[in-house]
């Protein structure tokens, strides 16, 4: 197990190094970059006098979704080992997890009633 995990991480590192090498080829093959005001400006369908910039704040709804995601995804991660070991845990395990799922559903209902999932 130890060695296979080591191999896994080594392979991840290898791929992470190998793929950027592809990217660097374009520097040797492609033309030398030239610069001009219009070319370096952000793409706006040809409009050079920009209105506003990209430092806009996100709406708070996005952060709400992110927070709800963190809660529910951690719950999913918590349920994974339970699901794998369900046969050994038996009836007791399933009752415990149903309580947990009940809390999860209650949380979802609360979020729903609060209007955090309303998008219009």
């Amino acid at each position: 197990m130890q060695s296979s995990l080591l191999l896994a991480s080594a392979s991840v590192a290898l791929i992470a190094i190998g793929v950027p090498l592809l990217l660097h080829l374009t520097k040797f093959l492609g033309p030398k970059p030239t610069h001009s005001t219009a070319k370096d400006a952000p793409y706006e369908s040809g409009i050079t006098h920009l209105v506003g910039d990209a430092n806009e704040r996100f709406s708070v709804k996005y952060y709400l979704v992110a927070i709800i995601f963190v809660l529910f995804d951690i719950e999913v991660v918590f349920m994974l080992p339970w699901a794998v070991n369900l046969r050994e845990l038996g009836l007791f395990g399933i009752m415990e997890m149903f309580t947990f799922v009940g809390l999860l559903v209650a949380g979802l209902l609360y979020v729903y009633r609060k209007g955090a999932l309303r998008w219009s």
Partner: protein
Amino acid sequence: MDAIIIETLIKIVVVVLIFSALGGFGTYFERKILAFLQRRWGPNIVGPFGLLQIIADGIKLFTKEDIIPINAERGIFIFSTLIIAVAAFTAFVAIPIYPQFTVFGYTVRPIVIDVNVGLLFVMGVMAVGMYSPLLAGMSSGNKWSLLGAARAVVALLSFEVITGLSILAPLMLVGSLSLIDINAYQMGGIDNWMVWQQPIAFVLFLIAGFAETNRKPFDLSEQDAEIIGGYHTEYSGMKYGLMMIGEYANMFVVAFLVSIIFLGGYGEAGSIVNGEAVGAWGGIWLILKVAFFFILFVWVRAAWPHIRPDQLMWLAWKVLMPLAVVNIVITGIVMMA
């Protein structure tokens, strides 16, 4: 030990080569199938049946001038293209892409590393790929990229939960996170496929797969009329190419996962001898299943319009998520009964 390292290195090179090539062929087949569905010719000039179009596109991408807009955060801008491609290739490390076979008396296991939490590994690595649209959009210095990133990330986050919940019910039945064990659970022909036991989980996982790869009904991050190209508006040359390869490789990851978890993987009637999958037939069946899901991706793109962001959120949180929870509860009750 040395033999294992050399074998692993060879496998990694083969996996990366195969799947970057598949990414290229994916773009060709997508165009060709779309053309067929829309009664066009599709690519047919370069080479026989336009097959060399991929090579022409590759040469074009490699020889493009490398433009980085002046507002962009250079480092993050470059780095974010790598994340999606690296994540997609890394996911293949734990996926059995073919059944075990023997060449010259040497048994080859076509999985780079048989991690016993393979599914968790794949899902985790795919979740890392989510940083790519976020960082790309935020570092481009372009309003439309930012909007595209916001949409993409919210969609990916929502459907990440659906993926996790929908996969729980099959895991309860199998009792293992290893993709090989999940495959072995469905050995013995079409009757043992997971899709018959877990139809709801299958549908949920497939829908979430479409959303996680930003495919058509859920491709909010890329709409020409509203936000130009979304988070990759500012990318050009091979940076754009890497993002495309990453997206297509992701489609193949999802296709492999669905085929292995729900459609029996490489265990297939006709390839079973003494309870073990042998020979090339199982592998060919797996390739056919993956091809089917790839065609399904393209077919859906041709057939359906995309939906609005609020409809997407409604679908994820108010329809699919309660369904997934109900599916888990029902599976638990049936298993205990």
